[in-house]
């Protein structure tokens, strides 16, 4: 078990390092300078910039300095927001992105799982078709369309909910700002989770041990819940891993549409403005989150299923 954990952890670190190298190379070699502005900069000004940000040193020196910073969780100064460090943006942004992602994930499971199980219990009858069609629609309407539609309907036309920004405090009115972004973020995952749940349940309900349980005389409810549900939802659990990465990209859209200053926004702005430190910071934080989460999922799997540990 320990060997398994160590291997997984090492793989995670290796991935992070490769990502750092890759992002670093791309950001340094990209077309477009972070300092260009409408009027061409005179060479003396460009020189001042490069000295200030340490960009006049050779690449490997820059990378080494950056690495030393990352180990201390310091991502360096931002070129977009002069005089401010990338950390000042990533720290609050990260908090928001995590909260939003968490809410979205929880909401997706809370709605998606029951939906899928429900559909599987009425397989091929109307409730099943209805539930699955709704779920599939969740996959078919892109979240950058769903978000504005929800805003149009619930915020502007019906005036039920506020449309954007982040809650100022914990009051109910402020917290209601989170409703539309959460739904937008969760919708596509509700769809996937319900489909996976349905498929998993159907799979399991046809297995031999279920038939045995029925033959033993247990009522359908017990069979369904006690024996079926436990195993039927494993595909849903395994979706949790890739879902984290998807929620992260989904949040880029949601943050843009709802003006939430989360990590996704900073990443996209950084990419568009060639703010190398911002890009690196966001990419590393994101990747670390995804890797960490996958690691946890792997550990859980390893605990549950010994076969996985030796593979």
């Amino acid at each position, binding site marked *: 078990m320990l060997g398994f954990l160590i291997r997984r952890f090492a*793989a*995670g670190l*290796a*991935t*992070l390092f*490769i*990502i750092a190298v*890759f*992002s670093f190379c*791309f*950001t340094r*070699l*990209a*077309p*477009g300078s972070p300092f260009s502005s409408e009027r061409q900069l005179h060479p003396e000004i460009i020189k001042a910039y490069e000295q200030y940000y340490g960009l006049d040193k050779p690449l490997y020196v820059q990378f080494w300095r950056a690495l030393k910073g990352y180990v201390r969780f310091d991502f360096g100064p931002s070129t977009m927001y002069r005089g401010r460090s990338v950390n000042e943006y990533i720290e609050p942004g990260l908090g928001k992105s995590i909260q939003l992602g968490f809410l979205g994930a929880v909401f997706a499971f809370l709605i998606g799982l029951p939906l899928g199980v429900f559909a599987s219990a009425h397989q091929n009858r109307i409730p099943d*078709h209805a539930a699955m069609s709704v779920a*599939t*629609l969740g*996959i*078919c*309407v*892109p979240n*950058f*369309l769903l978000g*504005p*539609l929800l805003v*149009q309907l619930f915020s502007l036309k019906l005036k039920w909910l506020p449309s954007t920004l982040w809650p100022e405090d914990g009051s109910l009115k402020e917290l209601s700002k989170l409703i539309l972004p959460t739904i937008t973020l969760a919708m596509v995952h509700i769809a996937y989770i319900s*489909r996976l749940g349905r498929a998993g349940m159907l799979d399991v309900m046809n297995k031999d041990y279920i038939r045995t349980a029925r033959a033993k005389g247990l009522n359908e409810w017990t069979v369904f819940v006690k024996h079926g549900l436990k195993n039927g939802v494993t595909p849903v659990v395994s979706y949790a891993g890739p879902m984290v*990465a998807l929620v*992260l*990209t989904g949040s*880029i*859209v949601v943050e*843009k549409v709802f003006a939430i200053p989360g990590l996704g926004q900073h*990443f*996209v702005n950084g*990419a*568009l403005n060639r703010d190398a430190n911002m*890009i690196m910071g*966001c*990419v590393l934080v*994101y*990747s670390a989150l*995804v*890797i960490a989460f*996958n690691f946890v999922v792997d550990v859980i799997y390893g605990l549950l299923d010994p076969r996985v540990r030796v593979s």
Partner: protein
Amino acid sequence: MGSDPIEALAAVESRSPGRMAMRRFFKNRRAVICIALLLFVGGATLVVPWVTRHDYRESDWEYTYGEPNGKYWMGTDAIGRDLMVRVFLGGRISFAIGFLATAVSVIIGVAYGATSAFAGGRIDAMMMRFVDILYGMPYMLVVIIIMSLTESKSVLIVFFVLGVFSWMTISRIVRGQVLSLREREYVEAARALGVSAPAIIWRHMIPNILGPVIVYTTLAIPSVMLAESFLSFIGLGVSEPETSWGVLISEGQQALDRWWFVTFPGAALAITLFCLNSIGDGLRDAFDVQQR
């Protein structure tokens, strides 16, 4: 039946795994309807731009932001271009990106996964470790970085980048299939009988791999199309005067009061994704039962 050997043979033939799966598939009404719908939409993207009298680049300056009417069935956009021809031309590009990117990822994935499984042992472990590492990378972020750093935004770059970053899942699936199939009884039997390795691959493995690959492909296409529309939304998609559903939808969501901007491309995309997903589901149901 019994006495006629040819008939007997025919009866045996029709029970081959692929044929049985197909039979099961075609019994799925939803999937069949979706095939028809998809062909309709796909056909429209081919035919409509060909037969229409409006050019997708030409502006009617008297009728910008125009509502749908007799002359412009889907209205006009902000510079007076006919939206119907743009929706269907955009469809061509969306389909092209979806299919081509998926094709790239499938080709790479199948080759990689099969090779890894056949190589076995340490090479296999190393190759899969590499896939694990790639899996850990937030794929969209990398795509965004690459797209924002390339200077030209041609359709080719988009589908290449998307394709190159989606092959990992299919490689895992293929590898898993090949590994499990190697152990199957009938393969061992074939080997015992002296059937050559290529023949084993061709007649026994490929048909069985094909199932999951087809299912995956059909389900990957919609996710690639969505990825392309996501890139368009953040401004990294196809550039003017070409267009795609993603570009049209992201333009349209900025002007929801002009409902025709977003409704037609949105409906087209939704229908296409719905159909592809249903077909993929149907295929999976059809092949899956057979796997057991």
